[in-house]
């Protein structure tokens, strides 16, 4: 198949499906970059193994295999992060664990060559790192008057503490998503429903949800 992965054709869908780590791990830029790196690593490793197994598994087995692979690699990353970067690990908390669930959405369940899967995973992972860093920068700079833990003294009197809470996370993510939306300058409403994404997962052909 030469067509692009449906998720990569619509970055909004990609952002929606990864809303959990984008919202949960962006109170600190370092934590956001660590989460982005973890997601990229899990994506790439899982897609490599899944590509190797794709011809041996049925469609439903691919879903289970993708989830277990992502969970396995996430467990390994959790242990490594806990051992070598306990501060970052404690900041990420439960969001690193559930990143397994978020990541497996991107793992292609249709029969693509390894090169395509790898390329799609790398592109998705790098895009997520950029978005995570952008949201974290907005939240930490304006919400906590700091950047990657370093205090920005001239902003300390102008903090907006709500940005560090849940509602601020949603708002900051909304602004970044709107910027991405504006840059892409799509003519139609670009949100695909989660059912479409689920259908993408369940279908053999990933082009089911493409807009004409």
């Amino acid at each position: 198949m030469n067509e692009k992965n449906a998720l990569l054709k619509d970055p909004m869908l990609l952002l929606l499906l990864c809303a959990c780590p984008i919202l949960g791990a962006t109170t600190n830029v370092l934590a956001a970059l660590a989460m982005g790196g973890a997601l990229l690593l899990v994506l790439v490793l899982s897609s490599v193994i899944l590509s190797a197994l794709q011809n041996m598994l049925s469609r439903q087995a691919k879903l289970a295999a993708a989830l277990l692979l992502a969970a396995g690699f996430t467990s390994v990353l959790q242990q490594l992060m806990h051992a070598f970067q306990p501060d970052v690990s404690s900041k990420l908390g439960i969001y690193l664990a559930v990143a397994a669930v978020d990541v497996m959405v991107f793992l292609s369940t249709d029969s693509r060559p390894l090169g395509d899967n790898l390329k799609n995973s790398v592109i998705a992972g790098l895009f997520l790192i950029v978005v995570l860093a952008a949201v974290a920068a907005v939240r930490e700079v304006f919400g906590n008057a700091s950047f990657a833990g370093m205090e920005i003294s001239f902003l300390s009197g102008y903090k907006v503490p709500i940005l560090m809470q849940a509602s601020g996370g949603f708002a900051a993510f909304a602004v970044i998503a709107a910027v991405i939306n504006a840059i892409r300058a799509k003519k139609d409403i670009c949100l695909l429903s989660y059912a479409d994404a689920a259908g993408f997962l369940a279908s053999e052909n990933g082009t089911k949800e493409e807009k004409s």
Partner: protein
Amino acid sequence: MTFKSLLLLIVGGVLANNYALEKFLGAAQVIGRAEKRKGLARLGLSVAVVIFLTAAVVWPVQTYLLAPNSLGFLQLMVFAAVVLVITALTESCLKKICKEPLGAFFPVIAVNSAVLGAAVSSVSSGTGYLEALFSAAGIGLGFAAALLLMAGVEEKIEEQYVPKAFQGLPVRLLAAAILSMALVAFK
């Protein structure tokens, strides 16, 4: 541990500690749904049942199998497998009882970060079995409530003008931000 404190766990899970709107677990599913309310109610209840059953299974697995044998590093994989099995069993039961399979909801539930997040938090908080069950019930009902709340908000959004850059995901995120602010009042 009194009955009142157990009930407060449920109420807390629905309001102050709503997993979708306060902890972002399951936020993608809550923000991204486009079905009618009946379909959303069915999805919400299915997720609530899966969360409850998952907590019921993972707590003894963690307490009596993984922790005593120093197998904590397998927690995530075991929990993911449990979620898959329980979702499949729920689908079979729904097919037999209601004649309505989960269909496209199956991967949505199996890939739901709220389910895995609830499972992980029910064992990490060091609570008893009953508390874990009631907490999971609250989390599941909170997810269903968040789904229905967002559906109501989206109906109103559709009637209004939204700038092009904010159409779709951004305006839904802003709506979720306002809902989340409302829930802070219950903390």
